[in-house]
């Protein structure tokens, strides 16, 4: 992976977050949550700086980042698309919906489209099983999605700004 250089403001942000948790090693997960919240993702350079600030090994930080599915080392797209792969959604056809998204966006799960617009991921249960199969685009939940609707959902965001009236379910 090519190295990126963290901007001064990013460095500042990370240091501030670490400081707000007293640079305590035990607060690593809380620190990572906040840093990811602010920077969007946790590339190697960010992890190195966090390790340095909390006075622990980079290996340990990396171990934690890769252990938990919530943390990501790849930048998410402008509109992150998550397909619920909980059992309820699975038995009501989530897999077909997922393969249609893969086909339309030409990316695999965990990848982002080259234009940075969409990223595709699976999640484990939104907890809205009554609406299954469910997908999320950002914070917005779409329920009872069929493979045929996929094209239209993507189109909503293609133009840049999603139409607020458009609502499935």
């Amino acid at each position, binding site marked *: 992976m090519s190295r990126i250089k963290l901007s001064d403001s990013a460095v500042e942000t990370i240091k501030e977050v670490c400081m707000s948790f007293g640079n305590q090693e035990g*607060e690593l997960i809380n620190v990572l949550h906040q840093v990811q919240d602010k920077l969007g993702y946790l590339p190697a350079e960010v992890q190195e700086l966090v390790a340095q600030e909390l006075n622990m090994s980079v290996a340990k930080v990396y*171990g*934690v980042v890769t252990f938990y599915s*919530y943390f990501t080392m790849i930048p998410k797209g402008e509109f992150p698309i998550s397909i619920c792969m909980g059992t309820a*959604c699975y038995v009501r056809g989530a897999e077909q919906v997922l393969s249609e998204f893969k086909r339309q966006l030409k990316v695999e799960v965990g990848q982002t489209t080259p234009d940075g617009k969409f990223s595709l991921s699976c999640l484990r*249960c939104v907890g*809205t099983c*009554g609406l299954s199969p469910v997908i999320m685009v950002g914070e917005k939940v779409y329920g009872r999605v069929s493979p045929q609707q996929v094209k239209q959902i993507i189109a909503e965001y293609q133009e840049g700004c999603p139409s607020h009236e458009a609502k499935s*379910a």
Partner: protein
Amino acid sequence: MSEYNFQILVCGGTGCKASESEEIRSSFVNLLNEYGLEEEVQVVLTDCFGFCEKGPIVKMMPDKTVYVRVKPSDADEIIKEHIVKGNQVERLLYRDPVTGTVVRDRQHMEFYKKQIRIALRNCGFINPEEIDEYIAHDGYMALGTCLTEMKPMEVIEQIKKSGLRGRGGGGFPTGLKWEITAKVPGDQKYVVCNVDEGDPGAFMDRSILEGDPHTVIEAMIINGYCTGASKGLVYIRAEYPLAISRLKIALAQARAYGLLGDDILGSGFNFDIEIRYGAGAFVCGEETALIHSMEGCRGEPTFKPPFPSVSGYLGKPTNVNNVETYANIPVIINKGADWFASIGTEKSKGTKVFALAGKINNVGLIEVPLGTTLREVIYDIGGGIRGGKKFKAVQTGGPSGGMLTAEFLDTPIDYDNLLAAGSMMGSGGMIVMDEDDCMVAIAKFYLGFTVEESCGKCAPCRIGNKRLHEILERITDGKGEIQDLDRLFMLSNVIKDASLCGLGQTSPNPVLSSLKYFRQEYEAHVKASHCPAGQCKALVRYEVIEDKCTGCTLCFRNCPVGAITGEKREVHFIDQSLCIKCGVCFEKCKFGAILVS
């Protein structure tokens, strides 16, 4: 609250929120203001009513009318008809799917008839963001009783006597766990609430926390009082933003009322609660893994003993309980251990919340007395199988459980019966499958989950489950051989025997139970390259039956990949090289002209 003549309760659970319940609430409020009725009618955004299938749900008080699948645009009619004229809005009432008759209120809905709500008692009845509403429903009364009238050991005796067992899955007697933690000497102890609900398809804990956060807070304080802990920690999935925000509001309110902090209710007892965030790891539901995660480490389980009750968070005695377990505590104190123990079966007391989902008519959150049969849950409460299809199996206990067939429909649900049947209670996920589900593919689905979620510490779980998944993949791709069935069986048993924690020990359950009850399906895959349910894509082919095709073009118009060609009123054709086997043509065809082979 009593100054209002009417109340409109709008479900604000995550499911209904996704279906615009927030907009419904605001259109009610706006219209009421416009009509000058805001003094008469109160609009409350409550939490989950449980009947998610028909959400968003709106309940009218005091007459308890239930409206289903409500849209923001329906608000006007509801106000004009129901509130002003006193007429129910017929078209929004629930219709019984079997009889087709209109059901006007909650008491007459089959969905609620067999339920007893203890843990969910306040969900959908109170505004979860108002501590006063909780207090008005006997909230914090149990805490008062415990702190002012009972000694810690007396409370523990009551919990033991009630027979309450851990609702997170294991079923360990709650009172005994408290007693052990209480008896371990230590200057600093912790109580932890486990909200790391990772079972896909289960959302009980989230709903309780969203709908009634104070009950969990109250029970944790009681837990702290009994065990001698001054600090409580809630370990919650970061993926539950609504539950987190409601919990934060509730904690602030409890502090403001002096129910958290120093010298609670003048008893001299000090206790406060902090929130810790999970980051998405199923294994963290296991208590030792959860504790490591709270310490900022990878959430890998460690060997027990020492149990967390002796050496847990930061090496201090720690009592870990699940949300639903806690939600039962205040009721046990208020109504008495004997009352609680009168519900349920001999060894499983009280009720259990289940997240009923899958191929069932009434998806939702239900709470039934232990000892209720699967048939009652699936057919009476769940309203039977969707689309009139045939029941095939029900999976309890999520990825750790097993599939139960029709022969278990009359088995009373309790911890021991489910274990004996090769499944488990688990946290309460209950996924119903019908004749269209391929059991081999379902087992593969669960194994895929386990492979992803295995923490990697034990080789049998890390490598073994991967191999299991590969074998299942081979079978569903039509490349399996009959010896694979024995390999699955042997490997599953090794993984069960040789893994450290509950995840590894139970992960092969879906394989073992499906092998046991649906062996013929496995055999069809490997011997005849045939998927009886028609689910395994590699083994399925969609073709047009020429005699039946009318050339209506419906399949052509719906095919997402343009694999179907044909002119109007002429026989259509499916190009097999383009077909992605999504099955849409089969679903859409009104003439049964698509052959699945």
